[in-house]
């Protein structure tokens, strides 16, 4: 029979030391990543607040809204974002739901289609669009919004597709239909509420895409927000950097808020 050795009341040491090693490796990864991502932000911030005479001033941030063209650029970009978002959702949501319900075998095909915008670089796509677009559309920035929908498709579709995978869609729809609800009502009051997270992700990705897209907008010669930053940089580089920093941190804060709201939603059991 085994001899029992009395032990001091402490957990196995070697094991915790091994875990400690993994924790140190992790910390090292975070420190390196933190340096790589934060040092450039800090460098740009220092550049923005330094004044030509060698002093430091935060006034550059306060003056942003008054800069020439800033509000126009923001207005235009918001407009494009709204148009693209509406079209994207109207196009992607019913299609994704339909495919899940009626043609599950088409999922792979559709997945392939949504990959196409990655195969076709935006710079190539805009050449073709400008070539075939009717003159009436060519004269308006809304053409950009229509093309942005194509760029947003992969992200939006993927987000929704995984969201649909995660819910018992067929059961939900059949239950709703058997209780007498029509297709429209089923979609709006049964399916969409269950896709909250996925929809949120699709919205965020689409809006972020529009607010960051430079290639097409600049080649189509409209001054959206990203284009304005570049144009204005020639006039006042410090303001341009300050705006970029604010935009970056602002988006981050927004995403953080959304992730908090999303996490707080009641779980299915409470609903």
């Amino acid at each position, binding site marked *: 029979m085994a001899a029992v050795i009395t032990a001091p009341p402490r957990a196995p040491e070697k094991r915790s030391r091994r875990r400690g090693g*993994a924790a140190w490796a*992790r910390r090292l*990864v*975070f420190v390196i*990543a933190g340096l*790589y*991502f934060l*040092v*450039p*932000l800090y*460098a*740009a911030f220092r*550049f923005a607040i330094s004044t030509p005479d060698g002093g430091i001033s935060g006034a550059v941030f306060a003056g942003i809204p008054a800069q020439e063209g800033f509000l126009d650029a923001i207005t235009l970009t918001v407009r494009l974002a709204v148009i693209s978002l509406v*079209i994207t959702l109207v*196009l992607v949501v019913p*299609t994704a739901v*339909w495919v899940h319900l*009626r*043609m599950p075998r*088409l999922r792979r095909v*559709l997945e392939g289609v949504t*990959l*196409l915008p*990655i*195969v*076709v*670089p935006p*710079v*190539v*796509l805009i*050449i*073709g*669009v400008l*070539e*075939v677009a009717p003159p009436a559309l060519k004269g308006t920035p809304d053409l950009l919004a*229509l*093309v942005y929908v*194509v760029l947003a*498709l992969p992200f939006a579709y993927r987000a929704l597709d995984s969201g649909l995978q995660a819910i018992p869609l067929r059961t939900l729809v059949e239950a709703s239909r058997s209780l007498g609800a029509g297709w429209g009502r089923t979609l709006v009051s049964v399916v969409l509420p269950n896709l909250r997270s996925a929809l949120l992700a699709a919205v965020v*990705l689409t809006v*972020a*895409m529009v607010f*960051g897209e430079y*290639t097409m907008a*600049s*080649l189509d010669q409209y001054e959206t927000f*990203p284009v304005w*930053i*570049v144009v204005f940089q020639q006039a006042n*580089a410090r303001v*341009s*950097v300050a705006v*970029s920093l604010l*935009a*970056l941190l602002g*988006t*981050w804060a927004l*995403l*953080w808020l959304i*992730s908090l709201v999303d996490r707080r939603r009641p779980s299915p059991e409470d609903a």
Partner: protein
Amino acid sequence: MRQRELPAWVGVVPFAAYTLVFLGVPVVAVVLGAFVDPATGGVTMANVGIATSGVYLRGFGSSIGLSLVTALVPGVLGLVLALAVRASPSLRLKRAVATASGVFANFGGVPLAFLFVATLGSTGLVVELVKAVGVDLYGAGFSLYSFWGVAIVYGYFQIPLMVLVITPALDGLRPHWREAADNLGATPVQYWRHVGLPVLAPAVLGCMLLLFGSAFSAYATTSALTSGSLALTPIQIGSFLNGNVLSGQENVGRALGVGMIVVVAVLMALYALLQRRVSRWLR
């Protein structure tokens, strides 16, 4: 009361039509234009000939090279970061990294160029700092505006992109596999070599392909950073659109566009083959 069911394909018509109009038609226009002689309107291979020689061939070379490097290296680094975040017990950290990845993956263009000019430009913060301790980066041949300089900048959106797209795949790694491997006497290295990485391989490959596409079509950042000193295909295409065109070469830009599509398509085909090999166990 009986309702006639619509045929199943009706549901995808709007989606298919939109994609056709805004993606299919323009692409076809580009492809056709690539083979048109702007002077005569006849069919010609001249555009393709120009697009695959000289400065344009070199452009493809650097573009492919840069995209491969910035798909593989940030791909690996992003994977390591995502694994570290996953292993961390802190929920706050996880949330911070998840949201930050979303933001940084979409960051690019002039703002990004600015960040790095302020950091690694010839009078940038880090360059000045290491100069203070006696290392002259630019004297040693480094330049932010070179291939490797641009690669470092690309990492700023490529690594977060990798974290963003690989994280869902990491949830597929079951803790029981690690515990079973531990139990059977495997070291952490053995676990990753025989189980962890092979299981992740299909997802990692797919994500790296996405990273390649993202780098290959990146236009804004490079255009802002190098203003043409580094010849990359998207920049060259852009210059055709901006009207810097020699007479008779108007359609070379389209031929370059076709070239880009072909490169990504070939890569996707290779990926499909490779995928079949690494995911044998999935089928």
